[in-house]
């Protein structure tokens, strides 16, 4: 026990901390500028100099460690004079432009000068003049105001790990710059903005549009983008979101945000938002998405945002009453005429648990069908259930921050720093803490974190993984803890020769990788969507499960949608009821029949891909799509479009008129994430609350559906999201007895208070797919960029400014072989279509791969990608899409 006296107050400490931390623990505030609780100690600003008895010089409280018996004085005449002197030094080159500075009101320098008194104007020389840099679309840099505390640099390098900015030059000439000197060209997390104490680095999104004290409301909610589930503080003025900031201490993201979370909010206020229900007037063949050519020449949305033209061609506006009774009537008619199986619904990983629960209940109770699925089927759902079948329910529900405490993180199938950026930071932190990063493949976001990489030839990952299992099982003893898996492991064997010859991996690299992997004591394995969507995915998942078992690791499954986990938990799948009760189990069906007071269908429904097929062949007559855009988010999107055009009655409920919406018979405007209450369940299976921040013109998804259900004579009486949550927790054994209050108190973390589920584990089935050979061909793969996620991000102007258009990425060798230059427009063709795109030469790519994102309307990868269905996981397999690139216009 250490006892120190600070300002006469005796403080007892368990372990040595800095004087500043000791003072803060006792509520004594020592002024600081360069210090920040998220950052490494620095000791540069000198503002926290304090008197310490028996020390000849003043010491910086932020760096000096306490010792037993130490006596510290933080506010004396001497320290006040020193601080006045330091502030004078800071002010001699700092412009006195507080009246026009956005930071005024929350500026730490301004506040300190207020406390210690203004400078006396003794500086007669000219102040340093640096023009404000507006070269970047997102971040304004004003180096006149910079006080060189370097918080931004330490954030960027030491926490974010992007190392995109640094101090340039030295001494009085020091200033902060991104590499280019102008545009940032970085990860645009904006965490530098969070930590800047003055108005030197600021967001352009709300430039000169408000003063901090004019903020009317601050709402704590959860990010709408990916499955990490970061806490956001949404700041509102005049019912408009002005700014999104993080909160230090929030459980998942602790004061950090990524680019989507921080800058992606503007879609809420987009002029393209749907405001009234729409009823189709145009024939089904007309949609505005149409052919490639028409889309290119006539963008469906005006640049300014108004979409009046397209809407009035296709639809007429309707009242809610009319739209709801029309939907109820048509659905009832189709049910009557064609039977329950002719109707299907697609749920949304962007909607809340409450929305999704109501959606599946509506499909099952009102429409009598289990034809419910979602885009989680494209990878996440099947991969998770495969893994859970081996290791038990909740096998992937691991705490994200646990990654930074791992001694090893093994990454495959996607760059975590772009798919789930805040999770990616935990992997970078693992490296910084001395942990090893092992990757199968090249991941740019981990490049500076000393990854030990094995990069097998495209489509030979399975052999490499077999090789790893083969070596590991000889190094580790099988414990018989999981006999089902061990039986499989015993059959796995491949030779190092195959790894060398087929994967083209050097034996030395392989052995080094294996040594690190086998010596790890606290490893984590992170699996991305590309593995789940690959040829032979189930076998690779088995191999990864085997590796995980042999090294006793934790599994993380990347999830690019905010509530992908939650929608599955809510039973938005053709084979499961809420809480993973299989529809085929009589017992679980009965349970829900009694709770919902309704008979339920017993037959497993269609997956999303089966729905598309059923639509194509005409057996599916009606479809209800909630907050999803299948025409865009499913591979082979032109076929999906044609199939949906074939549906007699299509209802689309969304916040924008999406490509799918344009095919609809009725379009219903929903509320966005910022306009409603509810809960999301993140990839850790942490249930967190969304809170309404602003008003919107539509209705909550659950409310629209409840209205329709009531119109159909069903009892769907809920007055708010909490009502629904309470029903969920009554109905779902997984969520047993949870309340909003429990969640508030941190009780929303798995395994909640629930009962064990999925008792009888099924046999492990794998599909041994035929290996694709890559000889000399190019293959189309999906780029999953940091800045986009699809429908939302492309209506977020800031994100569009950062990543404005679709590009095709090829390796330097490919570019050379085809003599393409950076930026040159080329035609990218597969057997199902072609698109013209500018080339980007990407050093991280191999010579077999061509990368394209699925984020830009009319130029999305899914327009060019055919798919197969993996027989075990029932996910789409995107491997094997050969592609040709040629000069455009030929």
């Amino acid at each position, binding site marked *: 026990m250490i006892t120190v006296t600070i300002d006469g107050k005796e403080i007892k400490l368990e372990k040595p901390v800095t004087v500043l931390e000791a003072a803060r623990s006792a509520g004594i505030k020592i002024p600081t500028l360069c210090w920040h609780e998220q950052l490494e100690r620095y000791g540069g600003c000198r503002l926290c100099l304090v008197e310490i008895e028996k020390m000849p010089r003043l010491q910086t409280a932020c760096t000096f460690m306490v010792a037993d018996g130490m006596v510290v004085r933080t506010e004396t005449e001497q320290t006040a004079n020193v601080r006045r002197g330091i502030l004078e030094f800071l002010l001699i080159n700092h412009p006195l432009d507080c009246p026009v500075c956005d930071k005024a009101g929350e500026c730490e320098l301004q506040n300190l000068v207020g406390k210690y008194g203004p400078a006396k104007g003794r500086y007669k020389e000219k102040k340093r003049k640096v023009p404000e840099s507006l070269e970047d679309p997102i971040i304004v840099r004003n180096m006149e105001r910079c006080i060189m505390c370097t918080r931004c*640099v330490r954030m960027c*390098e030491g926490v974010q790990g*992007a*190392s*995109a*900015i*640094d*101090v*340039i*030059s*030295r001494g009085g000439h020091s200033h902060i*710059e*991104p*590499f*280019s000197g102008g545009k940032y060209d970085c990860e645009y997390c904006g965490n530098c903005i969070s930590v800047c104490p003055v108005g030197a680095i600021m967001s352009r999104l709300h430039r000169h549009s408000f003063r901090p004290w004019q903020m009317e409301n601050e709402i704590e909610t959860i990010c709408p983008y990916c499955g990490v589930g970061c806490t956001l503080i949404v700041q509102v003025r005049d019912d408009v979101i002005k700014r999104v900031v993080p909160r230090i201490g929030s459980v998942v993201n602790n004061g950090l945000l990524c680019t989507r979370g921080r800058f992606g909010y503007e879609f809420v206020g987009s002029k393209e938002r749907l405001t009234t229900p729409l009823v189709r007037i145009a024939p089904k063949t007309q949609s505005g998405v149409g052919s490639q050519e028409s889309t290119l020449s006539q963008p469906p949305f005006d640049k300014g945002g108004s979409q009046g033209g397209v809407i009035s061609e296709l639809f007429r506006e309707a009242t809610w009453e009319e739209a709801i009774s029309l939907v109820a009537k048509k659905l009832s008619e189709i049910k009557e005429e064609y039977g329950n199986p002719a109707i299907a619904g697609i749920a949304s990983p962007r909607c809340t648990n409450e929305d999704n629960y109501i959606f599946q209940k509506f499909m099952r109770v009102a429409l009598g069908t289990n034809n419910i699925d979602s885009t989680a089927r494209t990878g996440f759902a099947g991969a998770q259930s495969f893994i859970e079948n081996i290791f038990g329910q909740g096998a992937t529900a691991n705490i994200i921050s646990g990654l930074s405490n791992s001694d090893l993180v093994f990454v495959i199938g996607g760059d975590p720093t772009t798919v789930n950026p805040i999770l990616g930071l935990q992997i970078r932190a693992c490296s910084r803490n001395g942990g090893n990063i092992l990757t199968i493949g090249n991941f740019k976001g981990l*490049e*500076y974190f*000393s990854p030990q990489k094995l990069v097998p030839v495209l489509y030979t990952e399975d052999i490499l993984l077999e090789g790893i299992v083969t070596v590991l099982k000889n190094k580790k003893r099988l414990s018989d803890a999981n006999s089902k898996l061990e039986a499989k492991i015993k059959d796995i064997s491949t030779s190092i020769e195959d790894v060398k010859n087929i994967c083209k991996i050097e034996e030395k690299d392989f052995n080094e990788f294996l040594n690190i992997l086998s010596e790890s004591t606290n490893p984590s394995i992170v699996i991305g969507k590309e593995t789940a969507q690959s040829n032979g995915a189930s076998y690779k998942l088995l191999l990864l499960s085997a590796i995980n078992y042999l090294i006793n690791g934790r599994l993380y499954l990347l999830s690019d949608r905010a509530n992908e986990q939650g929608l599955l938990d809510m039973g938005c799948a053709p084979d499961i009821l809420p809480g993973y009760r299989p529809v085929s189990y009589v017992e679980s069906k009965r349970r829900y029949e009694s709770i919902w007071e309704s008979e339920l269908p017993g037959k497993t429904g269609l997956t999303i891909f089966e729905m598309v097929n059923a639509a194509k062949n005409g057996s599916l007559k009606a479809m209800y799509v909630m907050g999803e855009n299948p025409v865009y988010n499913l591979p082979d999107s032109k076929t999906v479009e044609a199939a949906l055009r074939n549906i007699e009655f299509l209802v689309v409920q969304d916040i924008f008129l999406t490509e799918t919406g344009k095919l609809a018979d009725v379009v219903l405007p929903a509320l966005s994430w910022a306009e409603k209450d509810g809960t999301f369940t993140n990839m850790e299976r942490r249930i967190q609350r969304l809170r309404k921040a602003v008003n919107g013109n539509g209705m909550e998804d659950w409310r629209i559906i409840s209205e329709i259900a009531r119109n159909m004579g069903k009892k769907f009486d809920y007055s708010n999201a909490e009502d629904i949550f309470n029903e969920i927790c009554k109905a779902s054994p997984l969520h047993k007895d949870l309340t909003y209050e429990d969640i508030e108190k941190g009780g929303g973390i798995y395994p909640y208070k629930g009962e064990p589920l999925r008792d009888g584990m099924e046999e492990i089935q794998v599909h041994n797919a035929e290996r694709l050979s890559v000889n000399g061909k190019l293959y189309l793969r999906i780029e999953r960029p940091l800045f986009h996620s699809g429908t939302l991000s492309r209506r977020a102007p800031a994100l569009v400014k950062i990543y404005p258009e679709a590009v095709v990425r090829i390796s330097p060798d490919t570019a050379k072989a085809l003599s393409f230059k950076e930026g040159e427009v080329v035609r990218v063709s597969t057997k199902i279509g072609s698109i013209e795109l500018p080339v980007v030469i990407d*050093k991280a790519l191999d010579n077999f791969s061509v990368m394209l994102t699925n984020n830009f309307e009319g130029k999305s990868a899914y327009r060019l990608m055919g798919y197969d269905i993996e027989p075990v996981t029932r996910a789409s397999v995107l491997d094997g899409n050969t592609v040709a690139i040629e000069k455009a216009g030929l």
Partner: protein
Amino acid sequence: MLSKAAIKELNEIRQKYPDASAALLPALYIAQREFGYLGADAYEAVSDALGVPRAIARGVGTFYAMYKHKPMGRHIVQLCTNVSCMILGAEKLSDFLKNKYGLETGGTTPDKRFSLVIMECIGACGTAPAMLVDDDFYENLTEKYIEEILEKYK
């Protein structure tokens, strides 16, 4: 891109350190020699070679006075003007370089033959005033001696 020879040289230097990033200063010297000065290309080449983020490489490079960030003449005249040299007439020599050769501090002659860099102490105080031309020391300078010296550099 660095030349093959430069990459080989860098790889040898790299072996002297336990961390690749420790080879940054020597790598920047090599890049400066290869590119003439440290511009974006040079930093990117070093960044690729060592795995040091490019913004960090540039931050480090701009911290040190001997890395050049704009094109230089074929020969760099590095005149010391610190106290020992100053009190023995270094400032007059800098005036001489300006008047006779048109060499301003930090400037380059139009024929790209010389650039002038004013140095802090170069450790030739006992033989002040002194300068370095490229890597060669010249001491006990006079105007006449400077004329003779610069004749040697074409």
